[in-house]
């Protein structure tokens, strides 16, 4: 019992030391904190501060910098994956959200939901493996009609108003126009705070020698920066190349719409 009494006696002693220890720690860490907060700021450089050099240029992300060259927007799979049957497999094609005016075509190939058969004794029927399908031609060449443009979520389209059957006879030329306009559309010119915008319709004419003329906003999107970026895309273009030599008309009118989605 005497020994136990000694232990209690010693515990009483700890309380004083513990207090001292706590106070000393508090002073120590408090000192460090004050030093860091007050003195540290004097000679430390602010991270991301303005001391890193001249302000002539703002370094920006790679995100929206535009390069003139067309790299494929969507990597189509058919180039590599087709040769050996079954060994390689195409990725599932990206599902494009349908345009509002499109009527969805009922998908008849979809497998019907299986009835609940778990309770029956017969083993569930194994569905035929889709994987062995020969992926020939998936992601084919031109899935959209010639007059549509897909630009990383944004869309554009065009229509040739004059020239009768110009669009069907010279589909390749329409394709060139579409490609060239979309190449020259700089999306960083559009107000970055806008998530999406209604269509802006631009009209212009292409002369015999291929130059765009009379570029006009036919119908504004209501977003000035989008309207301006669309007009500028046309202004950057010197020529689309001469109109097809066997085309009889002197010029064609084009309506090009831009639809912006972030």
């Amino acid at each position, binding site marked *: 019992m005497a020994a136990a009494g000694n232990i209690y006696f010693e515990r009483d002693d700890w309380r004083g030391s513990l207090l001292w220890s706590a106070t000393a720690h508090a002073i120590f860490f408090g000192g460090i904190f004050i030093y860091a907060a007050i003195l540290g700021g004097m000679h430390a450089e602010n991270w991301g501060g303005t001391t*890193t*050099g*001249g*302000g*002539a*240029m*703002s*370094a*920006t*992300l*790679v*995100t*929206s*910098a*535009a*390069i*003139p*060259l*067309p*790299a*494929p*927007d*969507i*990597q*189509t799979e*058919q*180039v590599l994956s*087709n*040769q050996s049957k079954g060994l390689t497999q195409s990725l599932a094609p990206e599902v494009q959200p349908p345009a509002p005016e499109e009527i969805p075509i009922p998908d008849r190939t979809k497998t019907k939901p299986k009835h609940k058969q778990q309770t029956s004794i017969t083993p569930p029927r194994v569905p035929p493996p889709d994987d062995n399908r020969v992926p*020939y*031609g998936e992601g*084919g*060449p*031109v899935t959209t009609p*010639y007059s549509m443009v*897909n*630009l*990383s979520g944004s869309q554009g389209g065009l229509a040739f108003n004059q020239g009768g059957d110009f669009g*069907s*006879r*010279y*589909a*390749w030329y329409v*394709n*060139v*126009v579409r*490609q*060239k306009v*979309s*190449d020259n559309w*700089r999306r*960083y010119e559009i107000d970055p705070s806008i998530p999406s915008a209604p269509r802006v319709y631009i009209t212009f004419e292409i002369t015999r020698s*291929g130059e765009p003329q009379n570029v006009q906003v036919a119908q504004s999107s209501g977003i000035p920066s989008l309207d301006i970026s669309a007009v500028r895309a046309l202004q*950057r*273009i*010197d*020529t*689309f*190349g*001469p109109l097809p030599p066997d085309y009889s008309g002197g010029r064609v009118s084009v309506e090009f719409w831009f639809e912006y989605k972030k």
Partner: protein
Amino acid sequence: MKRIIPVLIALVSAFGQLLFAQQDWIRTGTNLGVERVRLAVADFKPGGADPKTTEFLKVFNDTLASDLDNAGIFDIVSKSFQPLKVPGTPQEMQLEAWGNPPVNAAMVAFGNFGVSGSDVAMQGWLFDVKNPGSPQVLGKQYRDPASAQNARTQAHRFANEIIFRLGGGIPGIAESKIFFVSDRTGHKEIWEMDYDGANQRALTNLDTISLSPKAAPDSTRVVFSAFAKHGLELHMYSRELQRLVSFPRYGGTNVSPAWSPDGSKIAFSSSMKGDSDIYVIDASGANPRRLTSSKGPDVSPVWNPKTGEQIAFVSGRSGLPQIYVMAADGTNAQRVTDTGYAVSPAWSPNGQFLLFSWMRKYGPGAPGAQDIYIMDIASRQWVQLTHDAGRNDFPSWSPDGRHVIFQSTRSGQDEIWTMLADGTRQRPLTSAGKNTQPNWRLK
């Protein structure tokens, strides 16, 4: 445990943001344009029984396929996918065979080629497979004296026609030339070659050090800098006369000449008055006029090829060399790079982009790589084109603005490399000796 949950949520959301940022970067890397035209280039059918046909036909087919592949605007169908029956004329063309899988071509180029008598003759067509109603986009025929060189030229010309039509009116570069410096003879001399690296030949034989060749816009003359009696002086080589023509001497060190877009003036860097500054002279060498007068060296001027109203140059006025842009009369100089060590500007043919060589981190303790960058002048946004491959310098634009040529040490020594202007499809053009300072002209 309850206290840990908010921490976990915070961690997960932070990680999610990280993932998100990464996704963003990847997406931007691949979405720089729209889908390319899928083009099938059929081997041309031999026309004629002359024994030389086979030899020249191979040259023709190889050149045509490589030209169209190098154009950068097509997705070329692999030859192993093509139908076995090769069409030689429009009557033999079966559009379904080329439009259906696995070929899936949107366009097909085909024709026939043969030696008849002392001539090589070719007929070529370009058909729009998806438009059976009026498939023909292009039809051409050429006839030249029989030689392998003419077979190459015909292929170049036909490729140029296709690129011109489908590439939006920009002339193809299949017949363009590249001027460069090579030391393969023991001295640095001025050389020229075709755009694909073929037909390399020396222009000068001065047995000194010749540098920075720049061909005039019409390619009739090449101005370059070479050691004369009292230092580096400008020299002028006439490609029509195939010899050097006389050119004034200015004294001091005269380097990095550049032609104005109309070919009437030359800008260069000279120390004729002590400090190294940008001067402009007439194409004849007369009337030197000083454009810059800042402290520190000013070198490597290049004109805006579209307007001729601006000059980009390298200046050391603020310490390390940086790229500046000024008006063509020397006023309103603005710095466009903010840090590091930036040299060798090259202005794109459409005037919208600057290429340059940049060491973003320079100095002791900051081992930065020297890489090619492209900058959009209007927005000052830039993109790095070469990564992790030697020292890359002296970029030069192709006349169509779709390709870039530059020198790189990635193969062990300085060689000339080419790539598309988005940084893809890099490949070497030279391999003999050290080859540097390329300059690309249309003919």
